[in-house]
């Protein structure tokens, strides 16, 4: 009954991007529209949830229309509507979830609730086929997770952050260095011309654990900056950035590599906004070179939040008839079963 090359209209509003996309067969991108609110939140030094929600409701239908127009499809062509159900900001998620439900109802289409992280992983499937087993490192402002997959739609969480997400640590350290929001790309850029002179701690946690912890590192950096300011010593921002980044990347790369070897995976998929980080990309390439494990990092526009990735992940659920009812709700703390 279900189409082989189904066309899915997908929606993503979990944080500060209002996004809609049309995806065919889980692998082919017909359109991918993202209305970012980056400039709006910049003046507040971070995402203000209520502001984000207000912008989502103003953008949603226009973004949807653009996605349909660019894909050159009508509702007669659409086989299902997919939406990020969680995790994320609840007020922001609610705009997308209720839009998706209304459209599914209006056109009698199946509705698919998608986990945001599943989306990040499946962004890669728009670039190349998956080969199982695979490992995915998801790094963003809200996430640092290692997920093992034996098959499509089968997610096993083998490691996650116990405190701050990697991207969150970047933003906080950037703030301490008085860099504008969002701080991640700024630190990455500064670090390119600095050296690891401070030797901040690397937090590997207990033997055999694939969990992460970045709050100790963040505190070490902030304390160091505080000391220097009190003693009126000059702060070499390039070196602070390089030292902080070296610690984060050492831990991310080493743990990911060990997990990939232990689980004998064929592919390592890197996902989430932090995968845009130049140093992380370079170090992963170095480490996985000659390992026999294929390193997959999608282009930047698929790394940051978008709806195409939600449509790609939804394709798997579509073929499993994993549909939601009209009582689907936003779930800000949604777990990956």
């Amino acid at each position, binding site marked *: 009954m279900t189409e082989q090359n189904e066309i899915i209209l997908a929606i993503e509003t979990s944080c500060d991007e209002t996004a809609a996309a049309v995806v065919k067969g889980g692998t082919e991108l017909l359109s991918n529209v993202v209305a970012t609110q980056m400039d709006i939140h910049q003046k507040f030094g971070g995402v*203000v949830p209520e502001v984000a929600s207000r912008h989502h*409701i103003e953008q949603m239908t226009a973004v949807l229309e653009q996605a349909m127009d660019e894909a050159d499809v009508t509702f007669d062509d659409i086989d299902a509507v997919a939406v990020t159900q969680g995790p994320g900001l609840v007020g922001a998620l609610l705009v997308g979830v209720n839009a998706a439900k*209304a459209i599914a109802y209006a056109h009698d289409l199946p509705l698919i609730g998608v986990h945001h992280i599943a989306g990040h992983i499946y962004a890669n499937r728009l670039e190349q086929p998956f080969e199982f087993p695979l490992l995915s490192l998801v790094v963003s402002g809200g996430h640092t997770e290692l997920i093992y997959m034996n098959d499509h739609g089968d997610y096993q969480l083998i490691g996650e952050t116990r405190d701050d997400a990697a991207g969150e640590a970047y933003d906080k350290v950037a703030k301490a260095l008085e860099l504008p929001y969002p701080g991640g790309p700024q630190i990455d850029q500064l670090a390119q011309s600095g050296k690891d002179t401070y030797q901040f701690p690397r937090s590997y946690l207990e033997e055999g654990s694939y969990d992460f912890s970045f709050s100790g590192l963040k505190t070490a950096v902030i304390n160091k900056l505080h000391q220097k300011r009190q003693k009126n010593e000059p702060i070499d921002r390039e070196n602070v950035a390089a030292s902080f980044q070296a610690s984060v990347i050492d831990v991310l790369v080493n743990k990911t590599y060990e997990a990939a070897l232990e689980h004998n995976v064929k592919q390592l998929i890197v996902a989430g906004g932090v995968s845009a980080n130049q140093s992380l990309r370079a170090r992963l390439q170095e480490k996985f070179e000659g390992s026999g494990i294929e390193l997959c990092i999608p282009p930047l526009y698929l790394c940051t939040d978008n709806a195409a990735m939600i449509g790609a992940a939804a394709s798997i659920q579509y073929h499993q008839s994993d549909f939601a009812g009209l009582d689907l*709700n936003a779930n800000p703390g949604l777990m990956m079963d």
Partner: protein
Amino acid sequence: MNVLAIDTSNQPMSVAVLKEGVLAAELTINMKRNHSIQVMPAVDYVMNQADLKPKDLQLVAIAEGPGSYTGLRIGMSSAKSLAWSLDIPIVAISSLKVLAAQVTDQDKLIAPFFDARRGNVYAGLYERTTTGIETIQSDRNVAMTDWLEVLKETNRDVIITSSTNHQFTDEIYDILGQNVRLIDPVLQYPKASMLAYLAMSEESISVHALAPQYHRMVEAEAKWLEKQKER
């Protein structure tokens, strides 16, 4: 005209459908429930009762606020997406105006309000004339004590109505005395059927531009503007 109306502005949720301009089905729930879970199943229910399919609809009516920010967005996102994807017009009407329209008295001012916490209310002033419900003072976010003074200065008889729980009863009688009447409880809950009827005689607006009427700036934005002024 077949009209679907949705109001999720406050705790009461109401959805209704008019078939050929006449009320066919209405559902109102006044429980502390989750509008996001309930609104589309409620729409589905009233549409089924009316024997209508989504493509039979000709107009969507939405209560635009004021009210709970989240509640407003749940209704608005559903209504906008329905109207846009069915390619039919949408009409947005003040949630306070809907309450006012449920009062039938013609010779008195009608003052609906919602509790906005910390002594504040969302309030507006309306009057029923031979042609319909007229707005006398536009909706606003205001301290209740200030609002009651505004009402007092009109020197008119006022009917007060509110669908949200509040502790202002004594204050209302203290300030407005003999000139005020609180509405019968049975008329104080928003009915989406009233929203639908009002919508039929109002002009539709562009669906994309439509946003809730919050009547209050986000605190972070207010603070940011304040800071800009200081510079």
